[in-house]
């Protein structure tokens, strides 16, 4: 059974304190690993897709990396506006782009 596990469940950082969020996955034939940001009361917002081990993508203070078993979302010098829930999801070969989601990491960045 395909599984996606995110850790930690919640993370509190001081502004400027860099850290990483983890997403471990088990899937037969990974097609893509996705990161989304979700603000309270809103739908998830797409951040990145990673396709193969060793791949990295960056956007502002965020950098996502991928290995054969896990992905990391690195947050460098975060600001309070980075506070959100970050969701990880995977799609698999042969699927109709369905995604299996993890339960998310709730990030709070304190000023």
């Amino acid at each position: 059974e395909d599984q996606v596990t995110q850790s930690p469940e919640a993370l509190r950082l001081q502004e400027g304190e860099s850290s990483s969020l983890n997403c471990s996955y088990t899937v037969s034939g990974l097609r893509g690993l996705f990161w989304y940001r979700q603000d309270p009361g809103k739908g998830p917002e797409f951040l990145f897709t990673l396709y193969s081990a060793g791949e990295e993508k960056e956007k502002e203070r965020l950098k996502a990396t991928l290995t054969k078993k896990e992905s990391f979302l690195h947050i460098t010098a975060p600001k309070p506006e980075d506070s959100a829930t970050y969701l990880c999801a995977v799609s698999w070969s042969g699927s109709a782009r369905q995604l299996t989601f993890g339960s998310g990491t709730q990030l709070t960045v304190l000023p």
Partner: protein
Amino acid sequence: NAGVTQTPKFRILKIGQSMTLQCTQDMNHNYMYWYRQDPGMGLKLIYYSVGAGITDKGEVPNGYNVSRSTTEDFPLRLELAAPSQTSVYFCASTISGSKDYGYTFGSGTRLTVV
């Protein structure tokens, strides 16, 4: 360009009532999905569609039905509402291609069954 539009934003149903959650997208996406999100849980796939006239079950389809008569619209029907269907429902869409493109999500429908 509105993206994915969901209506209503909030709804309270009594046990046994029925309702339709509306979802429309204006991006000409062929793939559309319905997910539910319970507190502290990941999104669970209810139904999906790869094009007009084609739908299939996801992980948690019981108690729901869908139809896809046009590319733009993908309504979700709840029959005989139960308290277990209290959740936030998200519609999403994407386009097929050689790579996976990220979903565009709607803003959600918060449903309470009492």
